[in-house]
């Protein structure tokens, strides 16, 4: 059997097992997702007030509303929380037992990522639905299924991008004692540059060239922009191309660093 097919099968089995295990904490997922949509709703109300009181924004009310209603969903769907855990497994030697298994340690983290997101969906989608219904009069809803399909593709690419960035950061644990500061730095930098705090369309015009092309835009903001509007067909295609490019580049670097790390690994605790 090819390596890819085997790994996929392992991921599928582990995801199913993880879902069964994690569904014990149903209540906790609901509370988590409640926290997840609080910030976007606060931002939504603030920016709508600013618009209503005459602020001259470069985007209209429909864009702002659609952006923040979808934001909670997209940040959840593209998130990754494994860097700290993976670094710990490397540092404390848990990686050793995986090196003699017929699958990578990373399959466990992929399964954990997929299973938790699957369960979070059940808690989050009804909440987003309610907020959507409240603001239904000022939502931008793309007509055809085309935009939604592109949204889904871009969401998947965004999730892969965040995941590979996390592998890259965690892999530094092969050489560094403590990567928690780096993990925290990634979270803080990403929260602003990904558009999770303020829509990138509202960033000052002098920063546009940088903001529009840096990788974090393609982890959250770009998928949301596909639905919220404004992107022309050309910009859309170019954006998807750049997103795919970032995924490939980061995956290549992560693979290089990971395999170099495996060679440098000296099995603590073995």
């Amino acid at each position, binding site marked *: 059997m090819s390596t890819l097919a085997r790994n996929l099968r392992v991921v599928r089995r582990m995801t199913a097992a993880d879902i069964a295990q994690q569904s014990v904490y149903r209540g*906790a997922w609901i*509370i988590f997702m409640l*926290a997840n949509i609080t910030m976007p709703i606060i931002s939504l*109300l*603030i920016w709508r007030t600013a618009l209503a*009181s005459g*602020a001259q924004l470069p985007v209209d009310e429909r864009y702002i509303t659609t952006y923040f209603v979808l934001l909670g969903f997209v940040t959840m769907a593209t998130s990754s929380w494994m860097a700290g855990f993976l670094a710990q497994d490397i540092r404390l030697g848990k990686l050793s037992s995986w090196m003699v298994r017929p699958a990578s340690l990373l399959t466990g983290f992929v399964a954990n990522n997929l299973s938790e997101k699957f369960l979070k969906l059940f808690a989050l989608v009804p909440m987003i639905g309610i907020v959507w219904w409240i603001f239904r009069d000022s939502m931008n809803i793309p007509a055809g299924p085309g935009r939604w399909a592109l949204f889904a593709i871009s969401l998947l690419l965004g999730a892969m991008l965040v995941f590979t960035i996390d592998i890259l950061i965690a892999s530094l644990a092969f050489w560094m004692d403590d990567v928690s500061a780096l993990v*925290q730095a990634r979270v803080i930098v990403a929260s602003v540059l990904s558009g999770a705090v303020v829509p990138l369309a509202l960033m*000052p015009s002098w920063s546009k060239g940088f903001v529009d092309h840096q990788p974090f835009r393609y982890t959250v903001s770009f998928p949301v922009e596909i639905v919220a509007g404004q992107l022309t067909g050309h910009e859309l295609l170019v954006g998807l191309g750049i997103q795919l490019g970032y995924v490939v580049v980061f995956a290549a670097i992560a693979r290089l660093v990971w395999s170099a790390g495996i060679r440098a690994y000296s099995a603590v605790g073995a």
Partner: protein
Amino acid sequence: MSTLDRTWWHKQWRHLRLWRRFFAQAVVRETHFRAHFLTTLLVGLVQLGLGIVPTLLLFGFTSEVHGWSRAEVIALVGVFQIVTGLLATFVAPNLNRMTTYLTEGELDGVLLRPVSSQFYLTLRWINVAELTNVASGIVVLVIGLVQADIAFGAGQVVQAVVLVTCGLVLLTAVWSAMSFLAFWLQSVNPIGFVFLNLMEAGRYPLVFFPAAVRTFLTFAFPVAFATTFPVRALAGDLGWEPVALGVALAIVAQGLVRLVWRRGLLTYSSASS
């Protein structure tokens, strides 16, 4: 009254002395972890800077929103930073442990001690390093007040301090009540996230929200008393009525939390014995 204290006042005095010991111990402990102090300081400063980004961007598009200028909102962000810093110093280290207290049976050991168990669980641990955020909050507040050209008298300062204190008491009460749900739910670890995310509403003046949300942020999740009202008091456009309301609400909230705690204790069946 227990035999330990002659009067109710003696009991309060004893708890105050105990808390002073907690604080002294926390300071000594902090000196052992100087790197922790430095990272807390740095992370706090970065978060303060990022937290102010939406406000700065917003006032790049307009000069005032519902009567609030940029400088006044910056002063408000300063008060927000002070309040969150105080909560992170004195309250968060305790309520974040609530699940452990109940599921690991650590509460058993607390119940045996000659101390109010609710007091002990809410205020035992202190994270001194977070006080740096209070300091940076004061700096931001002063910058905001100077820029806004706000002149205030002693009466207004008293109003603001009383309101911030009420806000702290109210928010602690809400967070405690949320955490005490652990008696019935077993695990409440994510509740801290919900609380901190709701707190973010305190970065903005109350009038920035729709009317229904304003009521929620005044009476149900009373962050308005901690940030908006104190700044309005300093600006001099707040009477004594909200101050009285704040004090009354704080007393009622304390009573309610006490009730939740008592009911919760009745359901506690110990995890270790």
